[in-house]
């Protein structure tokens, strides 16, 4: 298990346990983090699983693929350097304790 902290727009935080190998998107859906919609179920086709990764954690992540970068352009909320598709962030021991901020809107 690894911990993920989701920070809502209100500043309210929620820390959940995620199984190794599952994605941040899946952990969100399992724990009623409604800000993640994930219409395409994680196949990089919708960009409704957009999150902002905390700057302190950016260095721990594998870089986004070209497809992910392109799909992020379609996200509804503003895209920042810390933007990622949460379905592409797979939990590993190295990501334990990661914090992600939830965007205002997904579509």
């Amino acid at each position, binding site marked *: 298990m690894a911990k993920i902290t989701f920070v809502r727009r209100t500043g309210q935080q929620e820390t959940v346990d995620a199984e190794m190998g599952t994605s941040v998107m899946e952990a969100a859906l399992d724990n*009623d983090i409604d800000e993640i919609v994930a219409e395409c*179920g994680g196949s990089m*086709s919708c960009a409704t699983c957009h999150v902002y990764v905390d700057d302190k954690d950016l260095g721990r992540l594998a870089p986004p693929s070209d497809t992910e970068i392109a*799909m992020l352009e379609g996200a509804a909320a503003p895209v920042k350097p810390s933007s990622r598709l949460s379905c592409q962030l797979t939990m590993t021991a190295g990501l334990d304790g990661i914090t992600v901020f939830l965007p205002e809107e997904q*579509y």
Partner: protein
Amino acid sequence: MTQAQVVIVGAGHAGFTAAASLRRNGYAGAIALITAESCLPYQRPPLSKGYLDGLREDRLSFRPEHFYERKGIELLRAYRVEEIDRTAKAVVPASGESLRYDHLILATGSTPQAARLPGNDLDGVFRLHRRADADALRERLVTAREVVIVGGGFIGLEFAAHARGRGKNVTIVEAADRLMARAVTPVMSEFFLREHVSAGSRVLLDTPVARLVGGDGSRVQGVELHDGSLVKADLVVVGVGVRANTGLAERAGLAVNDGVLVDRCLRTSDPDIFAIGDCASYPYRNRRARHECVENAVGQAHAVAGTLTSGESQPYRRTPVFWSDQADLKLQIVGDFSGSDRTEVISDPAGRSFSVNCYRDGALIAVESVNRPSDHVAARKLVDRSGCSSPAQAEGS
């Protein structure tokens, strides 16, 4: 908000999203979500993609069980609605209690076309539409060697790419003269044909199937073509398109014609009943269309949820978006190419990364992209939506 009761028949992408979207919008009335299946509501696209590679079963479900409880969504499983009693405003199952509604949403989806193929029910012949199909297929694929796919549409081709990747001998038999003919331009069909052939699959175009042939124990042994020749098979997947599930609506006297007919706000001929997703035929550019894709199901669900929460009719005006993953090729489509009068190919198909722009009367109406997600994302903003938001044509069609 009064305690209105919304009943949703069908818990696929459209029905599930309608329920979730109502709560997200703050809808306070009762919501019942009905599914004829006994498992938790799940998404279908992975059934012909990641699920075959061993995607975990619980990952197929939209949400875990506690979601429904926490959201106050009454999930009725293994509940098949047989009739709609419009006078009593209730849905009626074969056995068990009827359920009253104030607003009814039909999200009954579609069913694989009952292939009128003799031998369709032989052992080893599969459809790929429900989770149970994928489970059975996944198991049988382990030992299969000779795989024949009847129908060269998205689902058949996705499965073909998967089976070929696992070293099976794959033959795709298609009655039309090109692959995915209903959904993509000839340029795209041509490209995918070359790709499947070079991956090692055999593709027979213009080739209607006469029947499926069984051996002892009624296990499938081959596929007989119209010219009498036989293609050996120990596993057959039939993917020849789907038909909208309109039976309920028809029996209730709603207007139906290849789909439940709805207006721009997705209302059926009964104003208290909506229809969304694969089963709904809606006004789309000068004509009626049924778009069988997630984006359409989800977008229509949001529109109806918006109407029911705001009390103001919200027209549906999204452009359909579709994707298909076949081996390392990611096909993404915005819009609907049918009716286009000019196409333009951007970049070179030989590079396995290109787009096809489709125009009608000078307006961009669809963009098909292969391994070019940036074109796809740009297209979502560029494709002309005027066709689906003009009030005049909506009612007239």
